[in-house]
């Protein structure tokens, strides 16, 4: 049995707006084991980023609230941790790579300063020289020549900036890395470089990664397990083999696969899922996917299905 690093039980997150309550995450259960890469897939608005922000304790102050459930990281319940506790965890044990490398770096600090900032905050025992040595090491690791550390973000290209962001996230050798669409803003050739680098780093540092993406291709490249999210719920979770090679899949996952133009076959028409995600201020009863599902039955409209378990493969469908 692998060691659990992060365990999320029945997590509920809502955003309060002036008009309505937005149910972003509804009863989410998820575990991440040590050294494992878990892919979290779903459309815009499925609650992927909200989940990551809850783990980091970074939900927006006045509008985002955790309404129930726990997030256990090792022995600490993050939902109950104080801001001071979180400051110790964040950046040191759990860190996050944001989607857009163009806006997540400070434009008026050199990249060397931005990496050493993390070390200064978390590794108080290090002196200046040791920090500077560590910055060189970490830059080397992500493939940036250390003599460029005195340069500013605008002097780097998109792929290089994303490497800097990854370097900052990895500076303290975190146990868990949350990567929120780390390659979406990059070109395919650069994406391939960054993915290859993340694979190598994972082997070297044994970091667990939660990879948030909507690109199933990226998931198949580097993930051990995959969770598919829809309207704030996990609807399917299993090993990469279960999801990509399994004989049975959730109709929504099938729809996602049907939407991707296949490179090996030529079909004239794609088979996308009809319609749109339900409005998360007003979710339908029963299975949340039933309004778009082509196999919908009467029971789907009233009863929310439980997980059906088949070894490592969990599907939430009737």
């Amino acid at each position, binding site marked *: 049995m692998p060691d659990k690093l992060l365990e999320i039980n029945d997590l509920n997150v809502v955003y309060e707006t002036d008009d309505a309550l937005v149910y972003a995450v509804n009863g989410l259960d998820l575990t991440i084991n040590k050294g494992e890469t878990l892919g979290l897939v779903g459309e815009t608005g499925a609650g992927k980023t909200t989940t990551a922000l809850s783990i980091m304790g970074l939900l927006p102050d006045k509008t985002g609230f955790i309404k129930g459930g726990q997030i256990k990281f090792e022995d600490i319940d993050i939902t109950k941790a104080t801001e001071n506790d979180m400051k110790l965890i964040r950046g040191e044990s759990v860190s996050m790579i944001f989607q857009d490398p163009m806006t997540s770096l400070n434009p008026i600090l050199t990249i060397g300063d931005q990496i050493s900032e993390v070390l200064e905050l978390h590794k108080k025992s290090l002196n200046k020289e040791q920090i500077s040595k560590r910055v060189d090491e970490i830059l080397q690791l992500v493939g940036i020549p250390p003599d460029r550390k005195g340069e500013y973000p605008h002097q780097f290209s998109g792929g290089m900036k994303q490497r800097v962001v990854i370097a900052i996230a990895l500076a303290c050798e975190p146990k868990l890395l949350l990567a929120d669409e780390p390659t979406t803003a990059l070109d395919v050739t650069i994406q391939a470089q960054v993915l290859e680098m993340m694979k190598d780093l994972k082997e070297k540092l044994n970091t667990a990664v939660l990879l948030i993406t909507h690109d199933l291709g990226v998931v*198949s490249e580097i993930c051990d397990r995959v969770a598919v999210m829809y309207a704030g719920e996990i609807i399917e979770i299993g090993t990469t083999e279960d999801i990509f090679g399994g004989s049975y899949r959730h109709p929504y996952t099938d*729809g996602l696969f049907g*939407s991707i133009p296949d490179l090996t076959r030529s079909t004239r028409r794609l088979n996308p899922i009809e319609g749109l995600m339900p409005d998360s201020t007003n979710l339908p009863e029963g299975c949340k996917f039933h309004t778009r599902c082509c196999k919908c039955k009467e029971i789907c409209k009233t009863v929310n299905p439980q997980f059906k378990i088949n070894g490592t493969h969990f599907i939430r469908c009737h």
Partner: protein
Amino acid sequence: MNIPLIETKNLTKYFDTPRGKLHAVDSVNLAIGKGTTLGVVGESGCGKSTLGRVILRLLDATGGEVLYEGKNILNYSDREMMNMRKSMQIIFQDPYASLNPRMTVSEIIAEPLKVCKVADSEKKMDEKVSLLMDTVGLDERFVNTYPHELDGGRRQRIGIARALALDPQFIVCDEPVSALDVSIQAQILNLMMYLQDKRQLTYMFITHNLSVVKHISDEIAVMYLGQCVERAPSEELFRNPLHPYTSALLDAIPVPTLKSGSRRRQIIKGEVKSPINPKPGCRFAARCPKCKSVCNEEDVELKEIERGHFVACNLI
């Protein structure tokens, strides 16, 4: 092959920058047959969008020709061009930024009709707008809504309706689906292919998403730093990529199948060079795994290797 609807001859666009001339588009030769789709792929900054805009004369070309049914439209006067624009339209990348937030859906779709004075009465205009909305699958009830009330897929449908308003023959689609989710992306692609069949449209489809481009294109042009490095029918290009850049690009696509995790890919090192005052020789030489000394010295021309398959590489 039928007569090309659009043809470019040595089309060139340089931008002046403080550090020298930026070669955005450098002697590009293309031909797009009527009713077909040319896909243009390449990394950011390779000049795909600039090419599209120069062809539509939204940017002035530095040199070369753009032929529309054999006539060079770069010499047209403003008045002639105004007439020409009815048959050439564009769909923009970002459905969030390319719609005026202060206009309703019907006003946005009707604007081209007003500008070109096509409809002669209010009533005709309204009829035309509702017909267009019906064509692109927008519900009647959205007539008086504003773009911010709609999701990305519906907004892109407005952009498509606006481009179709004047019954154009040729549409430049500048990354029309890259801002959308996969399931919505598939809906929009299906719509565009349906419209092409129905109206005999000619598309120039600009994208960096290779699986999308294979799906929709008849022919594909691969661009690298302002130059077209390979051009071939879509099936042929994917089956037999000849230029080292094309094969690296195809190799870099993550494929959603099981085997891909174990696959060790040939990854091209480094990044795109600056397009400002590029050195002579092959532009891809610095990143090319097969680079030889000749590549750094001689400029390369696009040569026809097989019928319909053009490559610009010294080694082939």
